[in-house]
Structure formats: C-alpha cells, structure tokens
C-alpha cells in the first residue's frame, strides 16, 4: 500500500501553510505527526494533490495553562501526556490519553491531528466534547473558535473548511470536578468498541460516549442515582443508534453504554474534590 502522488510543501511559517490551503482548497491537506493521516494516504482513502508539513513551524509547540488549557497544533500526544501539570489541570485527558494508540504512535502523533482526523471512537475528541472544549481554526484571513459539539459533524467529518487548519484546541481547566474515563477494546490500544468519559460536579453529571454513534456524543444529567440513572443510560444507549459491525453487535454496544457508563459515572462522582 503506497500513497498516490502528491506535491510536498515543507512550510516554514504559518502564513505559508495557510497560503497553500487558501489557493488549493480541497486538494491540499495538512500533515503533522501523520500517525492517522498517513494510514489514510497509504490506503488511498485520501488523495490530496499537495501535502503541507507543519511540523517545522516555530511557535506551534505550545501548551498554555490559564483559565483554559490551550494545546497548539505542533504538540505531540506524548508531550501532553508527559506534562507535569496535566493530572491537575486536565485530569480527564490524563486518564483518557493513555488509551490513544500506543507508545509508538503517541510519540509522533499530535493532539490536534487526532481532533482533525475525527475518528468516532478516538479518545481525544471524546474528552474535548466531555469537557466542552473548543477548536481554534485559522485561515489566511480570519480565525474562529468552534465548540467541540459543533465541530464533529459525522464519521471523520468536521466543521473545518478546506482553507482552514486547526491552530490549537482548548479545554476549560479543571475546577475540582470528578472525572473518569473507561474503554472497552479487543486489545489495549485498539480502537474502542465503547469509550466513556464522565465529569461530575456538585450539581450535575456530564457523560460522553465514543465508538457507538458516528460522532462522540455527550449528555448532561442531573445528579441521578439508582434506577433513574439506569433509565437515563438506557435511553441514551438507544438514542446512539448503534450498528452491528465486525467488532461488536449493536446490542453489545448498548449493554456496554449501560454498564460501563454507570461505573464510569460512579467513579467520577466518587473522585469529586
């Protein structure tokens, strides 16, 4: 499996990269770590005419921690995972990121690249939705921020226009919420059959599911217990419109949403500050 032909641009500045996107639109694609997109190229599921490498740009390798935690496009998954402040400022991400791929892909694969790839079972999009994060998009002329729930529009489809690139993503920094992440896959590091993320405060629970619908999906619940929580999870499990595939049946996926969902929510409630 070899990629189809493309021109290659080694961008030295952000303006150069955005200029190529502005001129070539749908024929141009950004490559960063390449750990997801190269597989698409090798299988010829993607056939861009020009590829723009952004990993030599200065200033794109930043993690800024304030009211929000902003991770720019050059940051690799392993760099974020190794950040000493991550368990404090983004406990959910520090729990979910070890499930993303393997050591051998997290070393090169970028955080924003995983968001751009928008695999419905991927962990980083799920965390971004669970935490109500934002995607920072930039063209040659303007910038905009899109809430995570509006960004993912379908399986591997996003609200990003052809002339836009993801400059960064941002998450609100943790303020004592309880968080939990769990995932069922055939083997560790495989794509999740079902992945669950929960964020619990004093008043409410936010629960997000990946791997079932064509986009990661979140719901806000009041503090439910007992059979009320079971009912809420059952309703959600049916709403996600699970499908049978080679990895698991729809029925099994719904059962995982009910069971793993419940244990994930209970864990998040327990670890509130």
């Amino acid at each position, binding site marked *: *499996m070899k990629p189809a*032909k493309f021109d290659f641009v080694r961008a030295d500045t952000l303006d150069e990269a955005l200029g190529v996107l502005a001129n070539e639109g749908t024929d141009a694609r950004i490559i960063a770590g*390449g750990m997801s997109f190269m597989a698409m190229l090798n299988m010829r599921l993607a056939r861009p*005419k020009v590829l723009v490498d952004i990993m030599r740009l200065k200033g794109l390798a930043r993690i800024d921690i304030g009211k929000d935690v902003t991770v720019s496009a050059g940051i690799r998954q392993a760099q974020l995972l190794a950040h000493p402040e991550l368990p404090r400022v983004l406990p959910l991400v520090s729990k979910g990121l070890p499930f993303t791929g393997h*050591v051998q892909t997290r070393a*090169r694969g970028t955080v924003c690249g995983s968001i751009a790839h928008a695999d419905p079972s991927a962990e980083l999009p799920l965390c971004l939705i669970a935490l109500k994060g934002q995607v920072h998009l930039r063209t040659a002329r303007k910038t905009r921020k899109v809430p995570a729930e509006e960004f993912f529009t379908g399986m591997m489809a996003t609200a990003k226009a052809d002339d836009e690139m993801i400059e960064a993503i941002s998450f609100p920094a943790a303020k004592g919420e309880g968080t939990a992440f769990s995932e069922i896959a055939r*083997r560790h590091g495989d794509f999740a059959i079902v992945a669950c993320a929960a964020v619990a405060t004093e008043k409410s629970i936010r629960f997000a599911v990946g791997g079932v619908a064509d986009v990661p999906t979140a719901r806000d619940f009041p503090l439910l217990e007992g059979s009320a929580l079971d009912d809420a999870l059952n309703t959600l499990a049916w709403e996600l419109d699970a499908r049978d595939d080679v990895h698991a049946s729809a029925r099994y996926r719904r059962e995982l949403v009910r069971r793993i969902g419940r244990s994930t929510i209970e864990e998040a409630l327990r670890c509130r500050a």
Partner: protein
Amino acid sequence: MPRLSADARHTVRFTLNGRVVEGEAEPRMQLSDFLRHVIGATGTHVGCEHGVCGACTVEVDGMLTRSCLTLALQVEGASIRTVEGLAPAPDRLSVLQAAFRRHHALQCGFCTAGILMSLDAFLKTTPDPDEDAVRDLISGHVCRCTGYTPIVQAALEAAAELKAIQEETAHA
C-alpha cells in the same frame, strides 16, 4: 518555502545510526521504503503499512515512530536509529538482543526489529519496569510466533542486567 513536485525525486539527508546518509525520494515515499530500497538498510521490516503491526518501528530524533506512517521527506536533517544500530560491534549482540536469543523471544523474526527498537528506547527511560509496563509497551506490536511470553521474559531479564551493569559502573 520549497514546493517539492510529486513527479520528481528530491534529495533527503539524515543521520542513520550515527552515519550521514543521503538518497532521493518522491514525496510519496515512506521512510520504511526509503530505508530499505534507497539506503539498503533492510533490518527494518515492513508488515501492515498502516501503523498497526509495529514491525517497521524506528526511532526518529529520540521518538519511536512507525516508519510506514512517516514520509522520507519528513525526516530531512533528523537523527534516526534502526535495528542495525543496536549491536555494539559487528560480532557482538547488545544486552537486549542477547536476552532475546537466550529466551527464544523470536522465531520467524519478522516482528523482532520493531520490538527491539521499542524495548531499547523503553529500557533507557524505564530502567526497572514491571511486567505490566512491558506488556503495555509491546501492545504496540504484533508477534504471531511467540505468544509474547518469551519477549516479556527477555525484556525483564535485559532490564535487570542493564541495571546491574549500570550500578557496577557507578561504583567503579
């Protein structure tokens, strides 16, 4: 900002196991194919070509990398280590390689180059790993012969041996 044409070959230079190498690659050429077909470094194996099997794992600027998910043009100027760089001399095996041999941690050997690269990098940062950590690391590789148990044993024994060597050198 040079735009490198799809239809031409372009010079790529990098350091491979301490030696500067150079060759020509079309933009679409993967690093795995560049190493094997252009440089002639066939120690790195190519399995699935979509990042799942781990056979082609190499180290680029200290980062473990699937070389089938990396373009040759992306590593211009980088420092790359492959399985050919592990042995201290042509007639000697590294501590890790010797442990693989003792434990029969390879049979057909197709996956071995990638697993050795992962473990070599891992043991540098994790000198005293437990079995879970080793199994988590090699979950990024597929081996169809060994059932993994001998690989885990070899890795743990190599870790202990490397630690003993380091302690002895520190006291010398």
